């Protein structure tokens, strides 16, 4: 699991591991089915060792095996902010961007529509570079299909951003 995703889910409030896991499963739907139960705890203990989260034993609920509450440190906060603002692409995958929007909305880190706009600007610049290269390439050159592939893939990504935009437009939880 992407460390920043887990950090961002903690940005709203300190949580138990099982709460984070439930949140992730809700956000990912069927795409999250393969996520194994221990993954989130492995990530949390790595984050703790790197000083990005702290862990405290919570009082009460003695019947629950999981009583640890995780919270962001200042360094963790910084890492989350940098991640939300990052527009590099292609990233590790669709899920990361999707979770960024959800985490940003839940923790009120940023308006998901503003994140989408920033990402769109970056993709359009890349598309512009690829498109210019494609325009300059003579027809039937060996490189033309590769450039067209880059263009079409960026275009698909931009269409997906439109779909994300539709999903977040007018929602009250953003």
């Amino acid at each position, binding site marked *: 699991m992407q460390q920043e995703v887990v950090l961002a889910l903690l940005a709203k409030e300190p949580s138990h591991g099982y709460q984070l896991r439930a949140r992730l499963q809700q956000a990912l739907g069927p795409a999250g089915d393969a996520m194994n139960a221990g993954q989130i705890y492995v990530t949390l203990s790595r984050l703790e060792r790197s000083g990005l989260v702290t862990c405290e034993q919570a009082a009460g609920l003695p019947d629950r095996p999981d009583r640890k509450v995780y919270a962001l440190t200042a360094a963790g906060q910084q890492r989350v902010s940098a991640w939300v603002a990052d*527009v*590099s*692409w*292609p990233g590790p995958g669709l899920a990361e961007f999707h979770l960024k929007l959800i985490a940003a909305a839940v923790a009120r880190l940023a308006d998901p529509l503003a994140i989408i*706009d920033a990402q*769109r*600007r*970056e*993709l*359009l*610049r*890349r*598309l*512009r*570079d*690829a*498109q*210019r*290269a*494609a*325009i300059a390439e003579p027809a039937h050159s060996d490189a033309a299909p*590769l*450039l*067209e*592939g*880059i*263009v*079409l*893939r*960026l*275009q698909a990504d*931009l*269409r997906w951003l*439109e779909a994300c*935009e*539709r999903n977040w*437009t007018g929602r009250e939880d953003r």
Partner: protein
Amino acid sequence: MTGERRGRVLRARGLRKEYGRGAGLVRAVDGVDLDVTAGEMLAVMGPSGCGKSTLLHLLGGLDRATAGEIWLAGQRTDRLSERELARLRCEAVGFVFQAFHLMDELTAAENVELPALLAGRSPRVARRQAADLLERVGLADRATFLPAALSGGQRQRVAIARALANAPAVVLADEPTGNLDSAATLEVLRLFDSLHAVGQTLIVVTHDSRIAATADRMISMRDGAFIDETRLTGGTSGNLADLAGLGG
């Protein structure tokens, strides 16, 4: 045509277009301010129904605004009579549409001659101009073809040649690649790019990100208003090698 400071071709202030009334009132364009510099290529993007086509029609004088001011090629257009507006449209604006809107019974050359004839040029001048324009869009050898005998990309290039017939101050294009496949889209993009390179002012409304990406500036529109503006001429933090999967 690059470098030196150039004039403004189009300016709009407080532009509004409303349809219906009372509870059924729709603000298709809702308070738009816009400045377009000579030689600039501007893309307006947004989901269908965001008002971008209506905006283009207002800017080009195909439709009247409910409120607001428009200057086109130095003239205030929102106060012109229908007749004056039609004249200005013919001389200062070239339109390109998604569905080409060529006359089916006229050849490619005759379609391109038409605006020049309507503007009062002699048939001889119109014919020579049309030949030049078809040459410019790479279709000199298709001059005598009817639109039905041309591919979609070729039809749109004829329509672009027609839009250029009266050397317009601005070309307004509404989803010009909406009916085209990937290869034909590239033809049209090449053509826009070459027009842009010689200083033609272009405004394109589209939801095709490939067109938007060839512009100098991209405006996002939602619910009749501008919500984001991007200059695309800066560099990127990525590069083609990364995008092609060659990154380290």
